[in-house]
């Protein structure tokens, strides 16, 4: 694995649900909180929409980390979309470990619309954890035969 350049910054893809986590991240912004800018946010209507394929595709395309954030259990705008995500994540975590993707690189978090500060803290923590791990650079795995 190549040594990362000094100015390397982790690229994190965030899938945030429209009703809670995205509003929480929005609140962090409108409250002018300062936090790590490494998460590229993709807004989805519900975490239940997030096919595990999206997460795999993000890693394959060069993401160093993926975060999925949605409503707290019981608060889903669509009643139980986030429970579907909870179930998928249990399996996906095992798959990612087997693939050699460390647990620090994938997180599932519950963030409500009022938890701007929590979102900022999660983004900071994750950026720091992945910075310590270094680049994932998945394409290097499939270079040769």
């Amino acid at each position, binding site marked *: 694995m190549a040594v990362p350049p000094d100015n390397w910054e982790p690229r994190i893809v965030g899938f945030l649900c429209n009703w809670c986590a995205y509003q929480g991240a929005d609140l962090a912004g409108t409250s002018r909180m300062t936090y790590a800018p490494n998460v590229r946010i993709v807004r989805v209507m519900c975490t239940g929409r997030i096919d595990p394929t999206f997460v795999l595709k993000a890693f394959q395309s060069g993401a160093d980390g993926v975060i999925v954030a949605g409503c707290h259990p019981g608060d889903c705008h669509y009643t139980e979309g986030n429970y579907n995500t909870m179930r998928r994540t249990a399996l996906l975590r*095992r*798959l990612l470990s*087997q693939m050699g993707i460390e647990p620090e690189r994938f997180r599932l978090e519950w963030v409500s619309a009022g938890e701007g500060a929590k979102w900022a803290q999660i983004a900071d923590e994750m950026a720091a954890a992945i910075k310590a791990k270094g680049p994932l650079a998945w394409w290097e795995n499939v270079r040769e035969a």
Partner: protein
Amino acid sequence: MSKPKLALYWAASCGGCEIAVVRLYAKILDVADAFDIVLWPCIMDFKYKDVEVLPDKSIDLCLFNGAIRNSEQEHMAHLLREKSKVLVAFGACAHTGGIPGLANVADRETIFQRVYHDTPSTANGDGVRPQLSYQVPEGELTLPKFYDTVRTLAQVVPVEYFVPGCPPVKEQVEGVIQAVVEGRLPAPGSVVGASDKTVCDNCTRVREEKRIRRFYRPWEIVPDPSRCLLEQGVICAGPATRGGCGAPCLSVNMPCRGCYGPPPNVVDQGGKLLSALASIIDSQDPAEIERVVDAIPDVLGTCYLFGLPASLLRRVRLEGNALPAKEAVELAKAL
């Protein structure tokens, strides 16, 4: 008028696809009537030079089975691509990597260490390993290079058609050969000899509601042969697998394992199967969900049994610390 030329080649596969062609029984004679067989090392004597001397694009149809795992197979894939008008990835290994593709959980060094040193049945006191080149009094002997990663045929050379299956079922092989003879072929890039729906569409079992609180491995349960296996807690890849096979496994009370590859518009078969399995768990309690999925000892091997090289990630991380299945479960528990 001369007959169209047919070639069959065998790379990293078990030979079952060759048997699938031979299993046409009497119809194999129709194949021999309709085609001039120019290469079929499994049943007739051919040498590489017989192929090398053929003019480019002179083979009308080449059925190539097996994945690409070493330099010899890669060489033959390129050679047959040059010589063939229509190159078909025939069977699960050429299509999605198949069972040999599971080797992508390891690399060359790990495999050599296991095969040439660690297996209990190996007696290799001198620690001999295959060499790419070796000098003997008579001259130089060479062996193909064994790669870290198994690839599908289409990841090595452009392919016109894909015939899925481990092996492709007899009726579909007949249909494909008939289609070639009659010149009824779809647009290049198509999957032929399969349907555009999932295995569930071929399955005759009764489907009611998929809500389970426990997964069973096939030896832990005698499932009701009339009801959907997933509803009984048996992991069945049917919802994430292309149909057209006629669901023969289901008809003998065994679950689908996914050999026909992903259905149309599915990018990653394992991701879809993982999603389907998660969605049937009848629980909202994180601890119970963990307990339910603990019954799946190897998520990667279950979801990508036939398609790891064709998946988005293609293999486990090289130079990383990919965990064996058992440790992955333990890690998930500890989190």
